[in-house]
């Protein structure tokens, strides 16, 4: 297909991850009483960010491959 789905997917999860990580860093401990005292926004934000970046890395590797430069890694 003409649009690599991993591109919008990687972007979306990277954005979600960044949003949650930043929000997790900025928000006080009070709101985490319900999540058993864990700053879930920070930690899950980092998970989403990593997932998104892996997707984006796969996209750029596939592009490099198509251009005949398999060694190109972002």
């Amino acid at each position, binding site marked *: 297909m003409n649009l690599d*789905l991993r591109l919008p*997917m990687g972007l979306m999860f990277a954005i979600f991850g960044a949003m949650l990580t930043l*929000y997790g860093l900025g*928000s006080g401990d009070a709101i985490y009483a319900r*999540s058993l005292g864990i700053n879930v*926004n920070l930690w899950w934000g980092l998970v989403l960010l990593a997932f998104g970046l892996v997707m984006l890395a796969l996209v750029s590797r596939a592009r490099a491959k198509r251009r005949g430069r398999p060694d190109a890694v972002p």
Partner: protein
Amino acid sequence: MQQIRLGAIDYAILIVYFAFVLGIGWTLRRYVRSSADFFLSGRSIPTWIAGLAFLSANLGAQEVIGMAASGAKYGMMTSHFYWVGAIPAMVFVGIFMMPFYYGSRARSVPEYLRLRFDEKTRGLNAITFAVMTVFSSGISMYALAKLLELVLGWSFHTSVVLSAVIVLVYIFLGGLTSAIYNEVLQFFLIVLGFLPLVLLGLKDVGGWAGLTAKLETVATSAGYSAGAWSDSWRHLGSASANPMGVEWFGMVMGLGFVLSFGYWCTDFLVIQRAMAAESMLAARRTPLLAAIPKMLFPALVIVPGMIAIALHSSRGGLLPLGSDGTPNYNLAVPVLLAHYLPSGLLGLGLTALMASFMSGMAGNVTAFNTVWTYDIYQSYIRPGQTDRHYLRMGHAATVLGIVLSVAAAYATTRFNNIMDMLQLVFAFVNAPLFATFLLGMFWRRATGHGAFFGLLIGTAAAATHHGLVLPHGATPGLKGGFLGTVLHTYPSEMAQNFWTAIFAWSACFTATILISLLTRRNKSDDELRGLVYAVTPRGTDRELAWYQRPATLGGVVLGLTLLLNVIFW
């Protein structure tokens, strides 16, 4: 329940998600040039995308809300919907049926029926399917709007219009490809949005061991033995030993064989995703690949329900009570979302919930516009037009499908009984279908008359059985027994449904065979090439290494499923 207050970050996440959904539709619009692009994605979807879409099209409201509700109500036995029901059926369709669906080049399941049997069988299937999908999509929309009204205090109209417009725009622009791409996006969102909820819930109740310990109290206080909520097979010996009220035979035959195979092997909603795959091999691997995440889904959708009921009993009244004093099981997921997730992740969880409803709706709408355009409009209303004409009709049918869904959603708010009645009728229509396909694909002697009248007799058998039996404690009417006499009382509605399916399937199977033997064949062996097992050349897998063959993959999937059944016995 207390309404959830969303923060700015939660709305921001929701808006980013909507922007991506619409953006994908907008980007894909350039690639839609012919009706095959619009309805079949030009048969160019890679396996992993088709596989996840195959899974996600079905991951609607019913699965996320309904399976959690069943998890709370019946416990671990709900896993049979996956490990006895869905997975074996998905393996079967991938290995044995996909060669005929994909190989026949039919553009839809009803079209396969025309190629294999005759026009009237196709017409019957196309029309019932079109009506059914519109109503399912409407029910999905209704459920979403009701839930958001209750949980967030949004007005019913806002939610209906918002979800309808978004689904309409992205399907209108990008057709099936857009629906499939968004389904994959939704799949990851649902997994990544609900996983933190499950992890937090399990940590809170003390892991799996803590959960089973708490569920023992739930089971014993309901009058069952201690493991009734946390074992899947152990209490299936008799119907009175488990909360579902089903014994093993009804479970395996009714749910496992008839209902699940009937759904996964014949419902165009899911088959369409595999038909859009880029090659025969990709099409066959689509359901097999989908089966791998599917077998892990109980952790994501059933366990939250089990956690909710465990907390409900051990910490007192987590779930709101309904008017009859029993907990409102349907609220298990929203209640847990509000209970564990702080602003931020809460937005992600709610977005995932909305995504699941929208993927269910979109799946129905894309199946509807295809069946409407190819099997009804092109066949009976305006045959022989240009491809451009049918592409335009596809766009119009998308709008029509959405408008009818909205109408169905509003009809549900006014006449709850009509919806229950329709769902009942659909169950009667669906239950015998698998017999027709099984005979059609594996017995060349099956004739058009046999298939058509077999289906009608199967449906009639389902209605008759339902009309003569009642679930325990119900009064005659929609729940059954409407034919005047009640011959048998089942311990539960679930048991009644399973047995209705078994009767319908057996009646259709026998009637199709008898009528086929009494009528003349209407298709020669030549015409059936590619449609029926016995006259289709085989051996295409030979050039693949053993580990690349669909049969190997299917075997691995079944082995893992067996293992899960044993672990949670």
